[in-house]
């Protein structure tokens, strides 16, 4: 019980000291720093451009995939290549086992 009280009071005083340390660093009177400099020199547009480039790449990939699947759906005889190869290689009757979740 004595040791517990000692540990708790140590911890509490550390917490208080940590709190006061935080007060030194965080001056709530100052305005929070924002990216106004980036906006002033136009670099924010570079950030936007990079993000849009990544997005554009993602959309082009999805649209491409969509088109490929649409082509496969319209052709009744088309078989996805890896599926037919896998079936030939393993020769398993229960071929659905090859399709993973």
């Amino acid at each position, binding site marked *: 019980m004595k040791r517990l009280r000692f540990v708790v009071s140590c911890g509490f005083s550390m917490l208080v000291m940590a709190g006061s340390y935080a007060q030194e660093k965080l001056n*709530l009177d100052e305005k929070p720093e924002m990216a106004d400099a980036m906006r002033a020199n136009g670099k924010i547009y570079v950030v936007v451009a990079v993000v*849009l480039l990544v*997005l554009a790449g993602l959309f082009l990939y999805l649209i491409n995939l*969509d088109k490929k699947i649409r082509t*496969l759906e319209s052709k009744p005889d088309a078989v996805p290549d890896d*599926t037919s190869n896998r079936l030939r290689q393993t020769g398993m009757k229960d*071929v659905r086992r090859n399709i993973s*979740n």
Partner: protein
Amino acid sequence: MLRLSWWKLLCITLLLYTCIAGFLGGVPSKPILNETIRNLYFHVAMWMTMMVLFTVSLVHSIRYLRTGKVSDDIKAVEFANSGIVFCILGLVTGAMWANYAWGKPWSNDPKQLGAAIALLIYFAYLVLRNSIIDLDKRARIGAVYNIFAYAMLFPTLWIIPRMVESLHPGGMGNPALNSSDLDSRMRVIFYFGAVPGWTLLGIWITSLRTRLRFLEEKKLSNI
């Protein structure tokens, strides 16, 4: 040439809007957060998307248990797969942000832990499915487990993190997305741009995977 459904075009438009307005739009100046408050449109939106995808997965699981149609089982697992992807993205984007906002990427914060547990529960769903060889049993047992996994999302993500002390906003019973806590400019971009945009993206990716699975099933049944 570009015969895309209306909702795919909407997805592209909304995400372009989110990314442009997300960086150029006005945000409140908060200490510690600074500009990273814009993470709302990316990190938080991932979780909203995940919830929608897991809900749709649940609906299809329940439908499978009622009808026994393979198409429902395929949709259930593919929506769960996409939900898992967005859950991982949410955890990773959160850790990247926390590294700068909280000092380290993992603080054993209740919400971080809850999200990790929810993710493990859904990983167990995939492991369970793959461990069952019989396809009907796989679908049926998987569907039942999916219902439990969805139910577990609520204590792990929504209830316990709000009850206990947390680094995330919303701890100790003060939900942070209510009308007085969210800036009105951010609310527009978040609810009309980010959430529908990322959700439609998740649905688009899932629909592609589902169509591919249907094609595989069709070819197998023809052989």
